[in-house]
């Protein structure tokens, strides 16, 4: 019994963070919804749920890479808006799509470079990037509009072999993230660097001969590229470019990561936890709509549930 409760709440002796409790909460919400409303389990709604959750899942997974390092990327919201704006500039898809990822990589590189080489706090570095990118986005696209390449729209809204495209996105993203995090030396080194940061010995991993700066930069590049991917997905979903679409997305992403048990001080966390965290948030939004919870009280409920989930995740360490 104590073993179970330990696993649920503490997960000491594992670096995955506490993900089981959020999983239970996600299941509880799903169970409540399927009992409460007939529509929840209907195929249409379940198919809605996947694309509704997808941008958050993508962004949160990207954000997780930098959070594992003990970093933070506040620029992902702007990156998403920026991506939709670039995609809606008009032009052939084979130019625009590689271009957005090249630009995202550049932004991520610049974040990482500034943080590692110039000793700038991640919050300051990425907050500045957030402002700068938003400014550029507003120049490119003062108001929403423009047309997104057809291929992007069909890649989001279409289906293949009867399966809606977002499902493939999900599989692809999880596979890439899984390979990066668990199937490579890079992933292990991320945990190592984060472990050093969270235990207060910033260069512990460096002393093991790990190319830490390079790995940190890489993590920020990955985070930006995932945000760009979320931007592409959203552009396909809203069928236009929009300077405000990513507004406050960074906070949602960070919240999803934290709900999933990843610790913001670095070194502890998991991919599945992050996905669960994003699902909890999406289920909550969907559930409250389906059960006709008054929009006036939805925010409170959302906040209260967040509070509950994190309050149950007490940790050994105090802080962020």
């Amino acid at each position, binding site marked *: 019994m104590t073993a179970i409760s330990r696993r649920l709440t503490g997960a000491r002796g594992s670096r995955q963070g506490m993900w089981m409790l959020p999983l239970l909460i996600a299941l509880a919400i799903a169970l409540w919804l399927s009992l409460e409303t007939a529509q929840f389990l209907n195929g249409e709604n379940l198919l809605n749920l996947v694309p509704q959750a997808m941008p958050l899942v993508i962004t949160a997974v990207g954000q997780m890479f930098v959070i594992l390092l003990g970093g933070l990327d506040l620029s992902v919201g702007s990156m998403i808006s920026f991506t939709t704006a670039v995609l809606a500039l008009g032009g052939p898809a084979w130019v625009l799509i590689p271009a957005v990822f090249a630009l995202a990589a550049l932004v991520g590189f610049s974040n990482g470079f500034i943080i590692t080489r110039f000793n700038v706090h991640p919050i300051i570095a990425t907050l500045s990037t957030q402002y700068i990118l938003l400014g550029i986005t507003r120049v490119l696209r003062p108001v*929403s509009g423009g047309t997104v390449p057809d291929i992007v729209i069909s890649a989001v809204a279409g289906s293949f072999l009867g399966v809606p495209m977002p499902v493939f996105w999900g599989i692809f993203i999880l596979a890439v993230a899984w390979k990066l995090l668990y199937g490579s030396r890079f992933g292990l080194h991320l945990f190592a660097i984060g472990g050093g940061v969270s235990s207060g010995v910033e260069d512990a991993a460096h002393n093991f001969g790990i190319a830490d700066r390079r790995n940190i930069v890489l993590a920020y590049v990955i985070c930006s590229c995932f945000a760009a991917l979320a931007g592409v997905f959203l552009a396909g979903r809203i069928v236009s470019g929009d300077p405000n679409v990513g507004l406050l997305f960074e906070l949602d992403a960070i919240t999803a990561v934290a709900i999933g048990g990843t610790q913001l001080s670095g070194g502890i966390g998991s991919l599945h936890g992050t996905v669960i965290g994003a699902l909890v948030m999406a289920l909550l939004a969907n559930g409250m709509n389906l059960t006709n919870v008054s929009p006036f009280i939805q925010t409170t409920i959302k906040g209260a549930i967040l509070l509950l989930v994190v309050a149950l995740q007490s940790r050994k360490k105090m802080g962020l």
Partner: protein
Amino acid sequence: DDVSLLDGVTARAGDNPTVEAGKFKKDPPWVIGMSHFGVNANTWTVQVAHEAEAAAAKDKRIAKFILLDAGFDQKKQVADIEDLIAQKVDAIIVQPVTSTSADASIAKAVAAGIPVIVHTGRIESDAFTTEIQGGAEHFGKVMGDFLVKELGGKGNIWVLRGLAGHPEDTNRYNGLLQALKGTDVKIIAEEHGDWQYDKAKKLCETLYLNNPEVDGIWSSGADMTRACVDVFKQFGAKIPPITGEGNNGFFGQWIADGFKSISAEYSPAQGAAGIRAAVALLEGKELKKHYDYNPPGWDIEKVKKYYRDDLSANVWWPSELPEDKLKEFYAKK
């Protein structure tokens, strides 16, 4: 036509298709869903929600009115409309977050046989069933024309814009530019105050201290006008001609201080108009596809008729809220 949606709303002239009678006819009770772009943008948007709820409550045939709040989040609006479709509501009213965000899901709703009414925000697609659109350009132009007239076609103005990137902001501003075309009225400062009192106050203070010489102020409305008037009063300066909109607080200020102004009309009762359009469609009445809401500006005389000293600054005129609701919501105690 026999459907009256709202005072000042007329069917658009020119190419305007008809939604044929009976197309969406359904026996009551009805379930009507509404996707609001952001209830808590400001007190005006709150009132729109209240006007819609009150109108829905008045019609006994509406069994259920589902209000969803996108909170300015287009992703959420798309999800909200999808959720409404999943719940098989009989009609969907959309206040779009942006001109394109809701397009795909509106098309989905229409494909599912659900009529879609769009108001307070134009969209690029025309997949919807019917729309009631207050012309943002018209709104801006009414204000611009007033300034041009007051200034005798010549002078320097400040421009206080709303939320950057919001279509309403851009369109109102475009209306101003139309009004200024060919005149000698020059914009010497142009800033975004996000339609908020505190931001606008900071802006006006800064602009004033930079250079108090200004002949007129074009304010994109909401609480910004009141903030700017307060700044001039605080410095003991003469208030230049300034534009405003139908806010009770602003009305009180205008009446008390007697500066030159105009109030462009943009009624929160558009929320009720949306409900009436939905009901008309479900009753099987014939509607046009496009309705315009381009009322003239209000002068001080009209303002005096509407102003209510016993209500707080946060009521917006004209309103269709019944007296008891007005009292309940806004009474100053």
